[in-house]
C-alpha cells in the first residue's frame, strides 16, 4: 500500500506542475491584465508597475521564478492585497473555509447516507418521497435563497444564531447547513440508488438466511457494498466544500477563501490566481487519492498492482 501512496504522491506533484503551467499560460493569454481600467493608467505608470511585479520579464522566466518561490513555500504576492503574501492570505482564510466546509461535509455525509439508506429500504413510501423532494428543492433553489431563508427564520426571527461573521461556534451552524444542503441531497440520492442495487444481491439473501439481525445485515452486508459510489462522490464534494463557497461566504460574511479565486480571476491578480488554483488543485487531487485508497479498504477486490 505504501508503494502505491508514494507513486500517487509523485503523480500528484506532476499534475500540480501541469496545472500550474497551464494556468500561467492561460492567465497571460486572457484579454486584460491586472492594470486594465476603464480610466487608463499612464503608460509610464503601467511600465513601473510591471517592473515592480516582475511582469516585464519573459514568460518562462516569470514561471521559473514562480516555481522557485514554491520550493520555499512562497506562493507569490497578490496585487489587490498589498499587505499580505498569497500564502498568508490563504493561510488566514483557509482555516475558516476548512472548518465550515468540514462541518458541512460531515453533516452532508451523515444526513445523506442515513436518508439514502432509509429511502432505499422503505422504497416508494413517504421517506423515499421526502428524500426526492428535498434533493430536488436543494438542487434547484440557489444557495443564495437558502442562506437568506435561514437568516430570516433563525437569526432575525428566532434569534438562535447570529446573522453571520466568524469566531464563535454558533456562527458556523447556519452557514454549514446552507453549505451542506445540496451535497447532502446528492449523497442521499447516490446512496439510495446504490443501496437499491445492493439490496437485490444474492449475498444479502444469504445473510438473512443465516438469521442475522436486520441491523447487522444492513451495516455489514448492504451498506459496505453500497459505499463505492458514495465514496467516489464524497471525494470531490469534500474538496469543493473545504475550499469554500462564494455564495455562502458572501451571505454570512465569512472571510474564507471561497471568493478568492473568482475575485482573483476577475481582477487578473496573477499572484493570487496561481496561489488559489494550485491550492485547490492540491486539495482535489489529494481528496481523489484518498478516495482511491478507500476503494481498496472497502472492496478487497480492487487491488492496485
Amino acid at each position: 500500500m505504501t508503494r502505491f501512496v508514494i507513486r500517487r504522491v509523485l503523480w500528484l506533484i506532476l499534475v500540480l506542475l501541469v496545472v500550474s503551467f497551464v494556468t500561467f499560460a492561460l492567465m497571460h493569454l486572457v484579454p486584460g491584465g491586472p492594470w486594465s481600467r476603464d480610466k487608463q493608467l499612464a503608460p509610464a505608470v503601467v511600465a513601473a508597475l510591471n517592473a515592480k511585479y516582475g511582469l516585464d520579464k519573459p514568460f518562462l522566466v516569470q514561471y521559473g521564478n514562480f516555481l522557485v518561490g514554491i520550493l520555499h513555500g512562497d506562493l507569490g504576492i497578490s496585487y489587490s492585497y498589498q499587505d499580505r503574501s498569497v500564502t498568508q492570505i490563504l493561510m488566514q482564510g483557509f482555516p475558516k473555509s476548512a472548518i465550515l466546509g468540514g462541518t458541512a461535509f460531515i453533516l452532508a455525509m451523515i444526513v445523506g447516507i442515513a436518508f439514502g439508506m432509509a429511502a432505499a429500504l422503505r422504497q416508494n413510501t413517504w421517506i423515499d418521497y421526502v428524500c426526492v423532494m428535498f434533493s430536488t428543492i436543494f438542487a434547484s433553489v440557489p444557495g443564495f435563497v437558502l442562506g437568506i431563508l435561514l437568516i430570516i427564520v433563525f437569526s432575525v426571527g428566532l434569534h438562535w444564531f447570529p446573522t453571520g461573521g466568524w469566531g464563535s461556534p454558533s456562527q458556523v451552524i447556519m452557514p454549514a447547513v446552507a453549505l451542506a444542503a445540496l451535497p447532502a441531497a446528492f449523497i442521499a440520492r447516490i446512496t439510495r440508488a446504490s443501496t437499491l442495487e445492493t439490496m437485490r444481491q444474492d449475498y444479502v439473501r444469504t445473510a438473512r438466511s443465516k438469521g442475522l439481525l436486520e441491523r447487522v445485515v444492513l451495516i455489514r452486508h448492504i451498506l459496505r457494498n453500497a459505499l463505492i459510489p458514495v465514496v467516489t462522490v464524497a471525494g470531490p464534494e469534500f474538496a469543493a466544500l473545504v475550499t469554500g463557497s462564494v455564495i455562502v461566504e458572501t451571505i454570512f460574511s465569512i472571510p474564507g477563501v471561497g471568493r478568492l479565486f473568482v475575485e482573483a480571476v476577475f481582477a487578473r491578480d496573477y499572484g493570487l490566481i496561481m496561489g488559489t488554483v494550485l491550492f485547490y488543485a492540491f486539495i482535489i487531487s489529494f481528496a481523489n487519492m484518498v478516495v482511491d485508497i478507500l476503494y481498496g479498504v472497502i472492496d478487497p477486490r480492487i487491488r492496485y498492482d
Partner: protein
Amino acid sequence: MPGYNANIGTQYVFNVTKAKQLLAQAGYSDVSKLPQITFSYSNTGSNPTVAQFLQGQMQQNLGINIVLDPEDSKTFSNNVNTGNFMWAFFGWGADYPDPDDWLPALFGTGAGNNHTGYSNPAFDALSTKALAELDNTKRLADWDQAQQVVMNDAPIIGIFYREGFVLVKPYVKGITTTGMDGALPGDTFYNLVTIASH
C-alpha cells in the same frame, strides 16, 4: 464644479421624429440596412439593466436591433483601451473637480483616455489655451467654448450621473460629502466628523 454651464448640451432631448430625420439624412430611412450594432459593457452592477433598457428603447422607438455584448470588467477595459468595440458604455470619475482634469484627457487628440478617437483641432487649440491661461474667468470662458465644440460634435452621449445616498445617524455630526468621495461617503473630510453623546 467650476466652469459648470447648465445650458450646455440642452439641445439634446428625447425626440424620436428628429432622430428618424437624422437617420434618413444619413441614408438609413430603412433601418434594416444599418450594419449590425454591438453594444459592449462591463457586466457588473446595474450595467446589464442599462444596456437592456437602451436596447429596448432603440428597438421600440427606432426599430433598430442592437446586439448586447456583456464582458467581464478586465476584458471590457482592455477592449475599450484598445478601441476594440463599436459602441461601449463606460464611466469617468474626475481626479480633481476642474475642467483641466476632464476635458483634455477625454477629448484631446490622442489623449490617454480619448477612447472614441475624437479629434477636433478647434477643441485642441481652445484646450491648450485654457490650460495655459492664469486668469480664472478667462480660463473658464475658454473651457466653456471648448465644451460647446465637443457638445456639437457629440463624440460621446452622456446618459446619467451616479448619485449617492447617505443615511447618517443624528448623533454623527460634521459629515460633508463631496463629489470626490472614495468608497465611503464623506471620507474626503473625515477630520471634521464628531460623534455627539447619545
